[in-house]
């Protein structure tokens, strides 16, 4: 991962994010989406974004690392396929804006590359909406990069358990989860293998 080979916003992924927080202890609970489901969700969100904003001309899709930039690229190519306009893309790293710096290890995840957002409609894009803290940090980061006309939030999964009053405008799937569980979105271009969304959790014996 270097600035040199990032030919595309968020075009590369650092290796140090590939470890899972449970240290490999969690087991697969449910496979919620397969590749086709995920493709349909992208298509639907793409249509909703264009419908809500009466077109795509002023849009900037800004993905939040790690998987947001890849989701944003998919949404952009879907929009381009049915609207025939190029959609501006950006990638945003929020590490330096997080509210848990010093409380846990925090590492930047990739190069921030955001086009001019002033006066445009920014759609922040991420894979999973959970506590809302990443989205809050993203709003702060965005404020210093310009003054968008409006800011919206698109996520593939809303898994609940918000700790901050933040709501998504576009949701692929609302997924009720336990706080101890882990929602894992896999995208071929980031994670390798097949697309899908899975719920992982501690082995049943620990989770009575």
């Amino acid at each position, binding site marked *: *991962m*270097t600035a040199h080979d990032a030919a595309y916003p968020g075009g590369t992924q650092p290796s140090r994010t590939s470890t899972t927080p449970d240290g490999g202890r969690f087991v697969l609970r449910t496979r919620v989406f397969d590749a086709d489901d995920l493709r349909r969700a992208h298509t639907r969100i793409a249509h909703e974004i264009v419908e809500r904003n009466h077109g795509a001309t002023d849009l900037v899709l800004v993905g939040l690392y790690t998987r947001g930039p890849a989701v944003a690229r998919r949404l952009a190519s879907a929009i381009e396929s049915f609207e025939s306009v190029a959609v501006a893309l950006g990638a945003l*790293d929020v590490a*330096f804006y997080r509210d848990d710096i010093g409380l*846990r*290890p925090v590492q930047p995840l990739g190069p921030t590359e955001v086009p001019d957002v002033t006066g445009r409609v920014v759609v922040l894009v991420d894979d999973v909406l959970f506590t809302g803290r990443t989205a809050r940090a993203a709003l702060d980061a965005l404020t*210093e*990069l310009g003054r968008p006309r409006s800011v919206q939030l698109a996520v593939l999964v809303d898994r609940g358990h918000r700790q901050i009053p933040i709501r998504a405008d576009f949701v692929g799937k609302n997924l009720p989860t336990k706080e101890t569980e882990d929602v894992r979105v896999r995208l071929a271009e980031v994670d390798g293998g097949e697309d899908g969304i899975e719920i992982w959790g501690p082995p049943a014996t620990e989770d009575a």
Partner: protein
Amino acid sequence: MMQHLLSIDDLSRADIEQLLELSELFVEVTQRDIPKVPALRGKTVVSLFYEDSTRTRLSFETAAKRLSADTMTFTVGSSSVRKGESLRDTVQTIEAMGVDAVVVRHSAAGAPHRIATWIDAAIVNAGDGAHEHPTQALLDLLTLRRHRGPSFDGLHVAIVGDVRRSRVARSGVKALVAMGARVTLVGPPTLLPEALETWPVEANDDLDAVLPEVDVVYLLRIQRERGAGALFPSLREYTTRYGLTAARATRLRPDALIMHPGPMNRGVEIAAEVADGPASIITQQVANGVAVRMAVLWSLLGSGGPVV
């Protein structure tokens, strides 16, 4: 998590690579309209400078401010050191004010290491005597990397001049060799290190023979304030044999890069037209210094969990 940055010896090749990648991200931050992030809000960084410095001190203070840390400056000229306060008392006084990192420059080799044993704050070596200047080495690597890409394997660097008393050269050699580069020291024997055989480098006293061979020529400052003048017959003689004059620079390969840690003695180790010429990346070294120091301060104060 890094606790101090005292010497390049503390860093593995992977650590250096990670710091350089982080620095690239901070280069982007420094290029924004608002070149500042809130990452180190509430942290205090003190610069404790027992030696004169313009660029290093300003660079660290700029780095701290762009991370939203508070900064304090301690320079010997205007302090209780003038009243005879010891280094240890000074440092403990500063710590009592509640600081998170101390950036130290001192004329005595090892002073930052000693300070690190006295107080809990993170210590950054900003130059200790003729020993080390690790952030200079890192910013030099970053500057090279931004020109040549992330691989240093096989890159041939000539370091020219007063290597013997140069902390820049000491840190630079360690960092370059750790990254896989090849280093040739160039200068008269009186300016090369005494235990040269223990250094992982080649040496040559003929600059004209070395220049066509190298990818980078790194000129060291003739440190007149450290008595460098006693080690060669005259500045004019030095310039004649080791100065990078415009005529001599034509021996370099067309894509070779010219570096200097500053401040330059124009007309001594480097001719003005060479310093300002297209092969010179000297001003980029200064610009990259802020990003590298942001990466170092973030790694020390921001990236980890609570210090227990």
